[in-house]
C-alpha cells in the first residue's frame, strides 16, 4: 500500500470522527436547519461537476456534465438560500414586537 493511500485512510478516519463529534450535542430545534446546512455543504459536488464537464470530450459527456453542473448548482444555491432563511429567524437581536 502506498504512502498516499495510507494518508487517505487516515483522512477518512479523521473526517468520520469530525462529522460525528461536531453535531453530537445539537439541540432538537436545530435539526432541520442543520440538515439543510449539511445539504448545502455536500453541494461542493459542484466543484467535481465543473471539473468533470471541463474534461468532457464528446457530446454524450458534455450532456452528462452539463446536467451534473446544472443540478449541483441547484443543490448549492437552493441549500444555501433555504438554510439562510431558516437561520435568519434564530438571530437573537430580532425581537420584533407585535403592533
Amino acid at each position: 500500500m502506498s504512502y498516499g493511500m495510507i494518508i487517505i485512510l487516515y483522512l477518512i478516519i479523521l473526517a468520520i470522527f469530525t462529522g460525528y463529534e461536531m453535531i453530537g450535542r445539537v439541540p432538537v430545534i436545530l435539526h432541520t436547519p442543520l440538515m439543510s446546512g449539511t445539504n448545502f455543504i455536500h453541494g461542493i459536488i459542484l466543484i467535481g461537476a465543473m471539473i468533470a464537464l471541463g474534461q468532457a470530450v464528446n457530446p454524450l459527456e458534455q450532456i452528462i456534465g452539463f446536467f451534473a453542473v446544472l443540478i449541483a448548482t441547484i443543490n448549492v444555491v437552493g441549500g444555501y438560500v433555504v438554510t439562510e432563511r431558516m437561520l435568519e429567524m434564530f438571530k437573537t437581536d430580532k425581537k420584533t414586537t407585535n403592533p
Partner: protein
Amino acid sequence: MNNMTQIIYLATTLLLLLGLKKMSSPKTAMNGIVLAGWGMVIAILVTFFMPNLHGFVNFELMIAAMVIGAVIAWYSGKKVMMIQIPQMIALYNGMGGGAASAIAILELLHYENSSIAIRCLALFGAMIGAISFSGSIIAFAKLQDIIKREIVLPLHQILNVTLIAASIILALYLLIFPDQIFFILPFFLIASVLGLTFTLPIGGANMPVVISLFNAMTGLAVGFNGFVLNNPALMVAGIVVGASGTLLTQLMAKAMNKNILSILFSTLSKSVSTESSATTDNMKSIEVDDTAIMMAYATKVIITPGYGMAVAQAQHKISELAHQLEQRGIAVKFGIHPVAGRMPGHMNVLLAEAGISYDKIFDLDEINPEFSNTDVALVIGANDVVNPAAINEPNSPIYGMPVLNVSSAKNVLVIKRGKGKGFSGVENSLFNMDNVHMLYGDGMNVVNRLVQVIKNL
C-alpha cells in the same frame, strides 16, 4: 491542479467545517452558514481558472448550466413557504445525489486511465448517488402530497433484494469489463429504481428520517467522488456530511422514538389502527365563545401546535392570541413536540417566523410536568403527538413514542379541521376524554374569531 487551487480548496474545507461547527449552536448558526457560503464561493471561483478545463465550448456550457441552476434554485428557495422547507431540502439533496452519480458515470466512461480501486469507488458513488436522487424526489412528492399514500407492491421486499442483487452484479461486471460502457445505463437505471421502490412504501410521517438518510448518502457519494477525482476538499466535506448526516438521522429517529431499520423496512400495520377506533362517540364539541371565556379567565395556558396549524397558516394568529392573553396577565407557554411539524425543529422555525420569542417555547421534557397545574391546554392542528395511546395502548403502532401529556391539564381544547385521524393514521383516544373539548373548523378562521371575542371581553 496548481498550488494556488490546492490552497484555496484547503481554505474552503476549513470554512465548511467551521461553518458546520457553528451551525450546531443556535447563537452562531447564522454565522456558520455565511462562512460555509464564502468557502463555497472561493472554491467555485478558483475552479473556473483551472488550466485543464478542456475546450471553450465546455466553459460556455458550464456558465449556462450554472446560471440556469442558480436562477431556478434561488427563485424556488426564496419563494417556498416555511412549511414546505422539508420537501425542498429533499429536492435539493436529490439534485446533489444526481450530480454525484453523473460525475461518477463520467469517470466510468474514462475507464482507460483509472485503476480498479478508483472504478470501484466510482461505481459505489454512482449507485448511492442514484438511489439518493430518485429516493429524494419520491420523498419530495410524498411531502408535497403529489403521492398521497404508501405504495407497497406485491413481494416488495423480494423486489428490493432482487434490485440490489442486480445492481451489484452489474457493478461487478463493469469492474471486470470496464470497456462495456453500455452496461452503465442499466446499472444507473436499476439503482434509480431501487431508490423509488425503497421510498414508496414509507409513510409521510417517517419521511424526515428518510430525507436525512438520503442527505447522509449524498454526502458519502460526494466523498467517493472526491477519491475518484483526487480532490481532498470533496473527500473531506463529503465524508464529514456522511458521518454527521448519519448521526443526525439517528438523533431524529430517537426524537421520534423510532428505530431507523423499522422505518426503512416496514410500514405501520393497518390492522392494528382500525382495532382501537371503536369509540368516536364521546367527543364533545365546543363553540368559539365558550372557548374564549375559558381561555380569558385562565391563569395559565399552554399552546401545543402541530403541523395542522402550519397548514392552516394560523401561526401568526396564534401569536396574536398569545399576545392578547398575556396582556390579560395570563401566563402563556408553548409546548413543542420534537416532531411537531414535519421534522425535528420545523415547528420552532414556523413559530419564530410568526414572531413568538424563544423563551416562551419549551420542548417535551420541559413542558410535560407543567400540564398538571395548567388551566387550559390548547391543541391546534396536532394529533399523534398528543395521543395518549402512545403511553397506555401497547398494541398501538405509535406505542412508546414520547407524547405531550395535555390530558393532565384541567381543560383541553382541541382545534381541529374535522374528525379525521393523524398523520400516522391512528385513532386518538384523547378526543374522547372527559376534560377534552373539540373546536371544529379551519385553524386560521377559528383562532381569528377567538382573538376577536377575547378582545371584546
